[in-house]
């Protein structure tokens, strides 16, 4: 794994996407952004990102889950770290419990992160997840 990653951000907030693009591009990474599930699915037909950050509420309150499932079905992305960004996780509680140990298994998501989140936090998460994956691969 090179230290230059291809990252996909899926979020309906253009400002958030542009800011992350600037932050990660300045570190030499390639950033792809999608504002909808449709755009994201189109993008992964031609691009294979190393890591994907998804917002939970894209079109609906749980679009992120559905999109993650669809991404996993893609053969090249079966093992790609997928991180779910949630602006409402802590408040809802009823939809899913982040502390639930079974959650990563059934959702096949690697990490849940509460919004608002900084680029620096996301960078740390990406480094951690990609290093773990590198170890596994090795």
């Amino acid at each position: 794994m090179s230290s230059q990653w291809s990252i996909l951000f899926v979020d309906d907030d253009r400002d958030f996407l542009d800011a992350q693009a600037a932050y990660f591009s300045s570190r030499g990474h390639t950033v792809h952004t999608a504002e909808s599930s449709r755009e994201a699915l189109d993008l992964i037909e031609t691009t294979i990102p190393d890591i994907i950050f998804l917002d939970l509420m894209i079109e609906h309150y749980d679009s992120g889950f559905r999109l993650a499932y669809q991404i996993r079905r893609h053969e090249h992305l079966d093992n790609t770290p997928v991180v779910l960004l949630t602006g409402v996780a802590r408040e809802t509680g009823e939809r899913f419990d982040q502390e639930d140990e079974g959650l990563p298994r059934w959702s096949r998501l690697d990490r849940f992160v509460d919004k608002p989140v900084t680029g620096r936090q996301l960078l740390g998460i990406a480094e951690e997840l990609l290093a773990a994956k590198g170890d596994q691969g090795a």
Partner: protein
Amino acid sequence: MATARILVIDDEYGVRSGIRQILEMEGYEVEEAATGKEAMTLLHSSEYDVAFLDYRLPDIDGLTILQMIRQDELEIMTCMITAYANIDTAIAATRQGVDFFLPKPFLPDDLLGVTETLVRHKQARSEAERLRKEHEAGLLALAEEKTQTHSLISSLRDAVLVVNKDGNVVLVNRAMAAILDLPDDETAPRPAADLLGAGPLASLVEQLAAPQKDRTIGQLSLGERSFMTSIVTFRDDDGQALGRILTLSDISQVRRLAMEKERFIRTMVHELKSPLGAIRSLIEVATDKSLGDNLDSYLPMLQRAEGRIDNLVQLIGDLLSLSRSEQTESRGELELLAIEPAVTGALRLQAERIAAGRIVVHTDLEAGLPPILASSDDLDLIMSNLIGNAVKYNRDGGRLEVRARHIGEWVRIDVKDTGIGIAEENLDLVLTEFFREKRSETRDVEGSGLGLSIVKRLVERAGGRLEVASIQGEGSTFSVLLPA
């Protein structure tokens, strides 16, 4: 003592007047009867405390008089006076309820002693009778109160069930009978487990049978309804448990409101967090110097952060307006207002955007429109929101029309645009809080999603209604109807 009334019944004048003189000297009120018939007439027409009666009378004898006194339940003490005192007459007289026996001849002191005793007895007996009657009346009142209490419990909105200390259900009110699907609100005592065992309240049987607990509170869902359950032990004055009362209070409405409020707050938090997240990320690009050392590179992102802050401020303002519009009373004073200034004011606020979008504005306010009764703050907010939307969601070079008409008892104001319109399936949703259509056309339009909710509430508070008509891709018309 002195007011006691005495009747002397004797055919011998001497005896009568003798007794009379002695008793009158002591302050008694005395009347005489020489025959049985005379005596009965007097006894029925007036009240006496004591009657002295001779055993032998010319018409009916003393025993018969005693019998009549008893039959007619006259409240009077009787004393038989006779010269023929013997055991037989004494027994016969006693059988007829005579209170005392005084043989002739007697001394004045004997007579006075007997009289005094009998009067005292009479008074004690009257007092006892009075108490008995009072008690009876009390019982009657109690019974009536019981009936009242019963019908009161019966008509309570809350469902009530009472179990006695033996675990038998002794009372089920109408609301409870409906829940338990029982025929009416009267049930013969039967064990709580039998009555509730297989029904919707089966889970409460165990709690009902635990009188050592003074109060158990819980929640229960039956179909679509939610109840607060309360089981209370009721005790006598000595603290002995007499039974338990189960009450079910329907809290469905409260719960529904609480859930709506919770959902609102959740959405609100999301709506506040999202822009904050974006602002934070935009600023981080600058603090991280992601775009190099030239400050100018950061200006576009910082300006976007500023724009998001402006929107947040607008959102907070809208939240306050929404909260105020929920109050039943308008904050501003109600006055008779013309429509025109509110329309002109709202158009002036949008002048810059109207010019930028090259929107053609057409106002058509009927001449002689009656004024409407509202607070001017409310009317301004209604018009600025509707006209603001018509500008925001319009097309470049589109048309905005404001029309007002006096129709019957209403003033109708239509705000019509030739903008992007609303999808048919969303027509009902556009008036709910935070709802915004997610379409490519709306992506760059800023808004809190609260404006129409505010307008709807303000219009309704002014006694009017808000109507929406729209065709996606062609435009929308929002109509405010206010009482003229």
